[in-house]
């Protein structure tokens, strides 16, 4: 039964990727004259006629758009994402250089967002009318109203220019300082910007769920029966986490979208920066590759969240498995 459930989820993920690729492909290739040379990479003038011919046959460039898409899909499934129009190197190689950087930034940020929001949300929800409880919603709205790049500029101004504490951009210092602390120092500001603009919203969501749980009958009974506070806490958290995870799943796509801006601002050599650059230079194959890889990351994260919810939520398990 569980296998069937996983299969169903994976089908949905594949469907998402299919739709994503289909739409992006058509958006990008709908404009005239963009597709043909894009596949030749940065050396269109230097390719021999035979080579051009071969590429154009592989990607069905002279055929209707749907056929082109089919050809593209076939190649992509086999791992051939084409050549970057700007750099003239295989797209897959460029993506491989970038993906770990994005995962690092997003992973670290997500870790702090999740732990931070759970700590804050629990604190606030369990202590009604405390300062934290009353302050959190204002903080959440305010922090989510600051454009991330704006906060980033302020950070650079303050921490790099005025105080000289942290490097303003990039991933590591040049010239052999390739150690852990160096990377951490470069990571702090971009990650902090992402965390600060997100943690409030998630914390507030959890706070609301915790409050709802606290009002529920079982907590009151448990309290009356003298159940230990710690046990009540963990029970409440467990129940409140289900809608929290659901919310996380709903918002995680926009979260990945937002990293584009932070990466670009801090010259963090990740997928987001790459995609923003490819938009500027109209490097379609590279952009397409970046989009697909981001799509895969999102789909996988959603899957992980689904699994977590599946484990936490007995009702869902029952419904999905039909037991």
């Amino acid at each position, binding site marked *: 039964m569980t296998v069937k459930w996983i299969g169903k989820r994976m089908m949905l993920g594949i469907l998402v990727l299919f739709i994503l690729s289909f739409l992006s492909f058509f958006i990008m290739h709908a404009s005239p004259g963009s597709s043909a040379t894009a596949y030749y990479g940065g050396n269109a003038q*230097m390719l021999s006629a035979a080579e051009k011919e071969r590429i154009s046959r592989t990607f069905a460039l002279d055929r209707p758009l749907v056929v082109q898409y089919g050809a593209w899909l076939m190649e992509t499934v086999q791992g051939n994402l084409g050549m970057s129009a700007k750099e003239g190197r295989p797209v897959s190689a460029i993506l491989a250089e970038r993906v770990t950087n994005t995962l690092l930034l997003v992973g670290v940020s997500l870790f702090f967002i999740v732990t931070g929001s759970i700590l804050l949300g629990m604190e606030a929800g369990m202590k009604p009318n405390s300062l934290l409880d009353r302050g959190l919603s204002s903080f959440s709205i305010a922090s989510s109203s600051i454009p991330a790049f704006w906060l980033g500029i302020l950070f650079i101004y303050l921490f790099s220019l005025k105080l000289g504490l942290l490097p303003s951009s990039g991933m590591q210092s040049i010239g052999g300082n390739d150690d852990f602390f160096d990377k*951490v*120092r470069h990571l702090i500001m971009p990650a902090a910007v992402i965390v600060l603009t997100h943690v409030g919203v998630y914390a507030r969501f959890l706070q609301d769920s915790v409050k709802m749980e606290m009002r529920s009958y079982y907590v009151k009974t448990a309290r009356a029966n003298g159940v230990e506070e710690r046990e009540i806490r963990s029970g409440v958290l467990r129940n409140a986490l289900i809608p929290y995870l659901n919310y996380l799943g709903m918002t995680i796509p926009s979260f990945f979208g937002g990293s584009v801006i932070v990466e670009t601002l801090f*010259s963090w*050599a990740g997928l987001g920066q790459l995609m923003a650059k490819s938009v500027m*230079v109209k*490097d379609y194959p590279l952009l397409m590759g970046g989009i697909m890889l981001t799509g895969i990351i999102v789909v996988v994260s959603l899957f992980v969240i689904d699994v977590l919810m599946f484990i936490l939520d007995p009702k869902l398990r029952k419904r999905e498995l039909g037991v």
Partner: protein
Amino acid sequence: MRKRQVVIIAVLLLLVVLAGCGQKKENSTDASKNQLIYASESEFDGLNPILEETNVDALLFRGLFRFNEDNEATTDIAQSYDMSDDKLTYTFKLRDDITFHDGKPLTAEDAIFTIESILDDNNASYLKSDFTEVDALKKIDDYQFELKLKRPFTPILDKLTVPILPKHAFIEEDMRTASFNSHPIGAGPYQFGEWNRGTNLTLKAFDQFYGLQPSIGQVIFKFIPDSNVRAIQLASGEVDIALLDPNQVAEMEKKDHLKIYDIDTADYRGMLFNMQNELWQDVRVRQAFSFAIDRAQVVKGILKGYGEEAYSPLQKHAFHNDSIENYSYDIEKAEKLLDAAGWLKAEDGFRYKDDQKLSFTITAPASDAVRVNMANYLAEGYKSIGAQVEVAALDWSAITIDDTDAFMIGWGSPYDADHHTYSLFHSSESSLTSSGYNYGSYANAKVDELLEQGRLSTDVEERKASYLVFQEALAEDPAFAFVAYVDAVYGIHGNIEGVKERTLGHHGSGFLWNVEEWKWNDR
């Protein structure tokens, strides 16, 4: 509950400590490193000096000749040379003690190979027009060769500053796709170290270098296209040298650890008229748009005084002609010229001719703030003469200059007068039909003739005369609306010694020309 607060505080503290640790670490290691980090404005596609010009060329490569402090070509790899009486045959004798970075000796064959490669159409070298007068090359022995010209061509010695390529690196290889292009071998003071695409390129001192052994062990080119990031990193010590935007200078001057070099250049900015656009066919229109630029304000407001008003491509050259039309700011003249050309002002304040509005777009590279600002300023100023001008600030790779209406061009050369004139203004150098730089397909028979005269005559006075008239002809029939010469302002770490100023080429290229003489006075 307490426990949780403790955890939060602990996490925060940890972060601060990490930041602190890293901080200390960097400072201590940095100061002990004998290396120079250069904030490079752009990354290169490849490092083959005959296919693409980069600011790394001066470090990796050397040529038969080399420009000295006064921008004169003096012998370098060539030990001596002879010129025949008819000025057609040159015999070069090379130094016999020079090896490439891979340890193989540099011989006459390599020099011949380099020139032949430039002339080979398959390679589409951007330098080809420099060598078109070469008729034949003949090896005499391992360290001597003969170069025959079709016609006398004085600038050939300038041209022979071209980097020498190792012939053995291209055996069985296509010049365009050779592995050399990403892993070059030269005979310069620094050799290739490592190229991390997208971040940096490291060069190491070459201990077999035939000239002065460099003092600085490593030169790192860190690719930072954003001028703002360059300045921030310069200020924070993450890079040691950076080219500054004019408006950044005042702030950088406040930093104690930096020295500012304001260096004269032959680097001008102007608006290229693309002759493909019908609008520019009428010379009066081009003249009008040249008159309608308030250059003084550009120099003052955009260049912050780091530059001067431009009117000629040879203004910084010994052959400069000051008595040509300077197109100093004159709205009235501009309006009269447009009236005469049939562009008449309508009620909406714009000019029309045959129901067509006087409008065009100036394209400028988005990464070059100065050019974008100039384009914006020009566009705004042109409103007063009834033209609707848009500005398109695009990424370099999204720009095809020959497709634009008008382009904010940047050119200039401190070297021989032929350099950056012939390939820019001669009709045979149109970018549509050749690998030349005449992006606007500008064609003027008189200019063509004068450029040829200048290039082929060998008498200095004769050449000067040709170029003086050339400047006149170009001013009468402008290819560009010249705007301003821009100084190259470099911010550089104050502990570096040995920087020698000379008039620099465009984009301040050549600042690193004598980097082997530089040293850290504290390392």
